[in-house]
């Protein structure tokens, strides 16, 4: 889902940057209000952990594989606003240090993976509070919705540029939807598994965040 430079119509990526920056500004203000000296290394640790967990490939079948995005995991561990900041750090590091995802497209990548995916996960987790399937379902939905929106961006680019950018909606939307409905299952199993595992093995890790980070989420 990492969109490269040169694929999207300029209007689409400009809109992506604007929306992503607006959402992240809110997240920064919310987190900054409650930041203390230990918050930064802890959030960085989660960012690094999710970054590395993204390198774990899981088999999908037929020789293909997928990997974690981790937005739902971040939300389950630290809550919505810190999760947005963590995912932002990951997307920026991937773009600027590993060449994974472009510069002009970074706004869209941030919007999909650092704003929409955590938001969807957060909504589902908070609506289905206490249900033991809330985390896996949130993980699946975060991947599926983010992918659909990514497909919509590709389709929009194609339509408004008369075929100079993006991918035809007829191709983009069904392929992205079907593929990520499957990938999402992997995300759901692993995210649910990690949360269960942490609860069993190291319950203190589930409270990784200092109290104030959690407070920032509730605010």
């Amino acid at each position: 889902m990492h969109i490269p430079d040169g694929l999207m119509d300029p209007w689409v990526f400009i809109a992506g940057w604007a929306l992503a920056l607006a959402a992240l500004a809110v997240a920064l203000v919310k987190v900054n209000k409650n930041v203390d000296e230990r918050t930064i290394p802890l959030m960085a640790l989660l960012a690094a952990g999710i970054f590395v967990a993204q390198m774990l490939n899981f088999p999908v079948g037929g020789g293909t594989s997928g990997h974690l995005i981790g937005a739902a995991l971040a939300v389950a561990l630290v809550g919505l606003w810190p999760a947005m900041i963590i995912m932002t750090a990951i997307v920026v590091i991937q773009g600027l240090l590993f060449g994974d995802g472009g510069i002009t497209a970074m706004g869209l990548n941030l919007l999909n993976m650092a704003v929409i995916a955590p938001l969807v996960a957060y909504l589902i987790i908070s609506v289905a509070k206490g249900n033991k399937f809330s985390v896996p379902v949130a993980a699946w939905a975060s991947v599926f919705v983010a992918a659909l929106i990514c497909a919509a961006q590709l389709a929009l680019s194609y339509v408004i540029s008369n075929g100079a950018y993006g991918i035809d909606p007829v191709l983009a939307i069904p392929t992205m939807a079907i593929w990520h409905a499957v990938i999402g299952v992997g995300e759901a199993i692993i995210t649910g598994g990690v949360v269960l595992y942490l609860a069993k093995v190291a319950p203190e890790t589930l409270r990784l965040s200092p109290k104030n980070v959690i407070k920032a989420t509730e605010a």
Partner: protein
Amino acid sequence: MKHYEIDKYAHSSSLFQFDPRVKLACAISLIVVTAFLRSMEAVMVVLLFTALLVLFSRVPLGHLWKNLALAVPFIVVPSLALLFTSGPYNAAVLAMRILASVLALTAVISTTPLFDLLRTLRWFRMPKLLSSIMMFAYRFIFVLIDEMDRMKMARMARGYTGRGNILSRDVFRTLSFTAGMIFVRSNSRATRIYDALLARGYSGDVHTLDRMKVRGRDVPSAQCSSASER
């Protein structure tokens, strides 16, 4: 470990000598302009310029190829899709546009050490919270990759192959335990690293001895890339 290569060529390249702010600003403006181009001729000029830039940067081709290989699916899939829906001209322009952008980005990021990059981003007013998280995260990533490699070896020694599909219970149990263990281990490591930082006087900001300076030789590089944008 392959990921240690990231900063490896940063110091030996001739592009390293340029001020990171100028370098990044030029690359970004080049990439932004490229994203607007729709004519074959213009994209070809940019592609030629970025290819020369890469040659001039003396980033080894093997390293470059690895970065490009990552981008290949992102070039091939959309241009194939465009080939069938919108015609060969648009598809070729799209492929060249993405390739040129990837080359420009690769030339710059593989010749800029991480700390220069972060200071540049700070100079461009990136919030401190975000740049500090990025700096720490970057340090932790390699520690965690090491941990993960050790766990991978242990998994393999116990007969795990990673084959299966989305319904394989054992594969997914192993993978989620691995991911969970990454967080457990990294938590205790991060605490120790942070204590060590505090003991060395860390107070939330990193201080360095050398200052960033725009020098005479930065001007031609700026002109060069802006000329190619026209």
